[in-house]
């Protein structure tokens, strides 16, 4: 599977993260999103006329939205991540995959505005980002009241992957995550999963490693 990828993109990271968690191999093709604007080049528009990343190629298949790519990778390499095959779970996972696009459009845009000087209505993006984080916090509390520790159930699914990166990276766009203790605990449990990988802006959880003993010569 080839992933057209940008190391700083939270949407590309969702795919890299899922692949790491399920042990799927990705052939990464770096796209010079910034400063090169390669995603808008004639050559890239042939790969994806929308000019967006991530894009996944697997044989003849080309997928262009992170929700679709995540679903495919999970279906092929880690079906547990789709959640149980019940109408309730299908509905929940689809809901959060859609919600993930709202996070990209609000928090994601605030972040590329603040960090990379990409144009945006920054006040509107931050306001929408705060609203989305509040909804995420409330949903995690509802989940806990149901006895679930993840968004769609009692184990992590694509629902969590779709929301995790922007929930962590919101401060890059001037949106504090201090007001959301339930989001904080949920992100910790995702970061502690075996096979978890970081992206720039999300630190390693050093507490998972014991204090080294002796000197370090």
């Amino acid at each position: 599977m080839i992933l057209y990828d940008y190391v700083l993109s939270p949407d590309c990271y969702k795919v890299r993260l899922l692949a790491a968690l399920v042990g799927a191999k990705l052939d990464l093709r770096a796209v010079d999103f910034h400063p090169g604007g390669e995603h808008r080049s004639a050559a890239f528009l042939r790969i994806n006329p929308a000019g967006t990343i991530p894009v996944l190629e697997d044989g003849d298949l080309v997928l262009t939205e992170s929700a679709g790519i995540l679903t495919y990778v999970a279906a092929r390499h880690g079906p547990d991540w789709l959640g149980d095959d019940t109408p309730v779970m299908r509905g929940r996972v689809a809901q959060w995959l859609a919600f993930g696009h709202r996070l990209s459009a609000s928090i994601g845009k605030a972040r590329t505005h603040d960090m990379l000087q990409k144009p945006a209505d920054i006040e509107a993006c931050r306001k929408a980002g705060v609203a989305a984080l509040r909804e995420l916090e409330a949903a995690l509390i509802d989940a806990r009241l149901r006895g679930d520790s993840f968004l769609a159930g009692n184990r992590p699914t694509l629902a969590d992957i779709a929301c995790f990166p922007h929930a962590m990276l919101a401060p890059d766009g001037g949106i504090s995550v201090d007001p959301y203790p339930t989001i904080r605990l949920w992100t910790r449990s995702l970061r502690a999963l075996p096979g978890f990988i970081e992206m720039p802006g999300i630190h390693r959880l050093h507490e998972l490693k014991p204090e080294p003993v002796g000197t370090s010569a």
Partner: protein
Amino acid sequence: MTAAWTPVALVRDVPPLCVMPACVDGVELALWRSATGRLAAWADRCPHRGMRLSHGFVRGEALSCIYHGWSYGSDGHCLRIPAHPDLEPPEAIRVPVYHAVESGGVVWVATEAPDVPPPTVEGSPLRSLTVEGAVDWAAAGFSLSGPVARGHLSGIGVTILVQPLPNGRQVLHALAEAATPAALKEASRDLEALRRQAEEALA
């Protein structure tokens, strides 16, 4: 007038090996819990290069700064500087320490040595939420005494601990009497409605 004890979190939201930011009397704090469950509230600033300790990590009984890994022990003194593993860190390298206790399922912090215990409160932890405006407690049917507001939401007895923040903001830490998950979910929605009213009044 500043209260002796300020509620800063629900106990459940500060599990072992966790650190989070908090703000009391305008002082920015790193609130954390060690592996054995010991709770602490420290100034949110590493004396090395001023990095927020609330971004750090907890190992065993020590809190370490994410920047250079300097680790600090129970009374805020520096235990270890990874760049100099054989160096005994000087006594002067120390993080200011404040008072933190757990009571009634709530974490309370005091910036000055308190001479009274925190208020007695009832209920099980429901949730915390941050509000960007003033809540009209009377209109909501709550009676407010110091930081403790008592009332009902969707028929459930609720106790809300109010933590003031700078600039007219506040955090509400809500405890509820025993109830079904469905009823508690309604109470959570009621809290969001209270927040909406407070913030719309501000607009």
